[in-house]
């Protein structure tokens, strides 16, 4: 008889130094992606102690919460939000538009959650921050007017930029070679299609250089991330269903995307939140390129002498745990010197574009971006590099007087292989 394996009694969760015989969320049997009711017994574990406001024991205890640092009042920090959720769900406080606005004035970057040392909050607060947005939508307090507007455009024109769907592929140069029957699709996403076209071009050219058989589907539409992130779950689900059906019917088995938001939505939200087990293998470009570097297919022909710093997009970093791949690729580029910002990886300061804040809270969004740009400049880097066209676009819009350059990783790679 096989000897029963002894259960490990001490577990560690990300953060610092938490160990215990049984994780607290196991006691509560907590799961991800549930509604507020599911978490009702844990909101009040928060004592608004303020640990969520700064990097815990690292990065000189720097501030991490754009929402709190901008909003200032306690309600804008995670502790405040936790206790507002408690108050609202236990009828100590009433829902109002102003309450909803507090929850929407947050990019849901989850840097605060990384710092919290209460296991239930550390692991699940992101779920109730999103559930609060869902609740706001149900009660008619959300989304914010600008978010409603872009959602309308997404439903009609498949993009949030008020652009025509028929113009979606205007970025595509004639020299890009596609393979009509390829089972690999490059999912371009709305930002690269309409705003940061060089990311789309660079990605397609890299794939061509690597002789990858791929195609871009003509009727690709918004992945639904901006809709989901503003609590409009049913609408986002509807978009997901359409996308999945379209890609599956086209025979797509693999997707590469250069957008962090699209990646997270396809890879995590579609199957885990919406329950659509689409079976398509989704990779973010740096992950894919790292595998090509490892097997020797990606070779950098040219040197690119440049000091750069890397900005972790929230959607692939904290939300999906991808920190190494982009750095490994970046550091392999000959001539590139990577200098980290003080707040990096899971402690990275958000660029302030996600979660619907750039459309609805412009001043706050710019505040977050400028803080990150300032931090990037302090490294003495010439450029801030990211792996998300939305972050890139945010930086470009907020960089003043060419104080620093901003690139997507794909743009740098393109310079060295073509």
């Amino acid at each position, binding site marked *: 008889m096989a000897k029963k394996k002894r259960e490990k009694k001490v577990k560690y969760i990300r953060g610092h*130094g*938490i*160990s*215990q*015989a*049984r994780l*607290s969320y196991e*006691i*509560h049997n907590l799961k991800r992606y549930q509604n507020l009711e599911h978490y009702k*017994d*844990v909101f*009040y*574990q*928060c*004592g*608004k*102690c*303020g*640990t*969520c*406001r*700064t990097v*815990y*024991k690292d990065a*000189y*205890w*720097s501030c991490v919460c754009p929402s709190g640092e901008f909003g*200032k*009042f*306690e*309600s804008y920090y995670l*502790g*405040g939000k936790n*206790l*507002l959720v408690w*108050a609202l769900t*236990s009828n*100590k*406080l*009433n829902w*109002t538009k*102003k*309450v909803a606005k*507090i929850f929407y004035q947050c990019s849901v970057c989850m840097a605060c959650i990384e710092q*919290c*040392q*209460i*296991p*239930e909050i550390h692991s699940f607060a992101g779920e109730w921050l999103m559930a609060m947005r869902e609740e706001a939508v149900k009660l008619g307090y959300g989304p914010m007017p600008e978010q409603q507007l872009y959602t309308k455009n997404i439903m009609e024109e498949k993009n949030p930029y008020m652009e025509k769907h028929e113009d979606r592929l205007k970025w595509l140069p004639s020299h890009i070679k596609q393979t009509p029957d390829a089972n690999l699709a490059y999912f371009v996403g709305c930002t690269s299609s309409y705003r940061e076209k060089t990311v789309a071009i660079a990605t397609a050219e890299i794939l061509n250089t690597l002789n990858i058989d791929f195609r871009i589907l003509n009727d690709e539409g918004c992945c639904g991330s901006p809709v989901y992130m503003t609590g409009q779950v049913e609408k986002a689900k509807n978009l997901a269903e359409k996308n999945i059906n379209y890609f599956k019917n086209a025979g797509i088995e693999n997707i590469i995307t250069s957008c962090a938001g699209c990646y997270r939505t396809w890879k995590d939200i579609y199957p885990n939140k919406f329950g659509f087990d689409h079976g398509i293998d989704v990779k973010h470009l740096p992950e894919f390129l790292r595998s090509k570097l490892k097997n020797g297919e990606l070779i950098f022909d040219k040197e690119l002498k440049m000091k750069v710093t890397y900005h972790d997009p929230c959607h692939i970093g904290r939300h999906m745990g991808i920190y190494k791949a982009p750095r490994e690729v970046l550091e392999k580029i000959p001539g590139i010197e990577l200098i980290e910002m003080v707040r990096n990886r899971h402690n990275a300061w958000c660029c302030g574009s996600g979660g619907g804040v750039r459309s609805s809270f412009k001043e706050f969004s710019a505040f977050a971006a400028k803080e990150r740009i300032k931090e990037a400049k302090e490294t003495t880097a010439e450029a801030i590099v990211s792996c998300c066209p939305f972050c890139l676009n945010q930086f470009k819009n907020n960089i003043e007087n060419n104080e620093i350059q901003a690139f997507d990783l794909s743009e740098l790679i393109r310079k060295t292989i073509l």
Partner: protein
Amino acid sequence: MSNNEIISELEIVVGERYVSDQPELTYLYHYDFITAEPEGRCDIVIIPGSAEEVQEIVKIANKYKIPIVPWVTGINFGSIATPRKGGIVVDLRRLNRVLEVNEDDMYAVIEGGITWAGLQGFLEKYHPNLRAGITWSPPGTGVIPSCLCYGMFDLGMIGGSGAEFINGLEVVLGSGDLIKVGSCSLSNYWYGRQPLPDLAGLFIGWEGSTGIVTKASIKLWPKLPFREDYTGFARTVDQGFPVLLKLSKAGLGICDLLLVNFGWSQSIQELYEKNVVIDAVKDKKPDCISLITTQAYTEKQHIAQCEAIIDICNEGKMRLLSASDGVEGVKPPPVQYWNFWNFTRGGGGQWIGSYCSTRDVVKYYNISREICLKYGKPPQFYSRLMFGGHYVVARSNVNFNKNDPEDIKTTRKILQEIHEAVQKLDGVVMYKPPLWAVKYYKDKTLPSTTRLINKIKKVLDPNNIMNPGQGIGED
């Protein structure tokens, strides 16, 4: 006078963005969200950006005779930042700078709203050879409130209580006047409180009821190159405490010396109160877990100190593990326990936190232990030897579920029973005391002393607007 009119005046001082009476913002300031004490009421919250703005706010509060409550993070186990009589909560978080570090005299001049995270971060970045004493409270809590309320730090053995770390203060009085106390009152140096009359005492231990501190100088200490952190285990507190007492008087470079009981050690490990050992003594678990930190300038000195510590502990049958042996639980500072209030997984925690004579610690523990066990709660206790062993802090924590009214009721009973019982030991005095404990001390203090306290309060806060309902002075 409506809130709107007052707010209009306050907006002129700080700008529209930093003042509010909206419930979704004031809600977070009406209660500490940790203790079993009653909730309060916050009518207006304001976030000033300078001492001058604080002065103007106090003047407006005086004009309308509205209570005013200084606030940094608003949590402590005594609920003393809960606005008991409504009014304006002055959130000091924008006053969060380190203004100066004097490396020669080893002090930092800090603003009233700076947190432990802010101070530590600044020192780590710009003055890595210096360190501040650090509390066990979370990094988001305030430095100055901790000093003013006799908080204790991991340098307590060499520096005493937080109050003794204070070199000087800048304060906005209840009248709106701005004053300075200590050497800074007549020079640009903030090195100490001597030799003029020590007016810092007008603000220490008063729970924010005499003024709002906008700046303070606090002592810093050199980071010595050699350091060892020991964890010691003894079967009982009765057996272990005498060993610590001996160590405190042995002059072995010890900067921190404390013990926790088994219950407390379970709470800080994030365990669930319902799944833990309730009576460690009965269960034959080591009920005395001590932390001993020693530091030295030279290796030779360090080795000698460590050897002496080991000898004393061996003699007292205290088993030692050291951080350099790789003991996970013992790490260099800061050790900050973010959530020991959450032992019940219910987010509630309160204490009987007392200063007392070293003679009474063991008795204190045994009294509090019996009371906790009577109510089925795991006894949680911790004690820190202070200022070379001149006095001691003794604390009994009780955790509870904030959503369970019965648990809250039981917690109140336990706390009050412990408080009443340990008073019989005489020298036991609570710090950061909640209202019911303050009442006890008011009754106990000599009438002439009480009269003096009340006169001082009247002079500093003529309209009784400063954190009314809290502190020892008469309302």
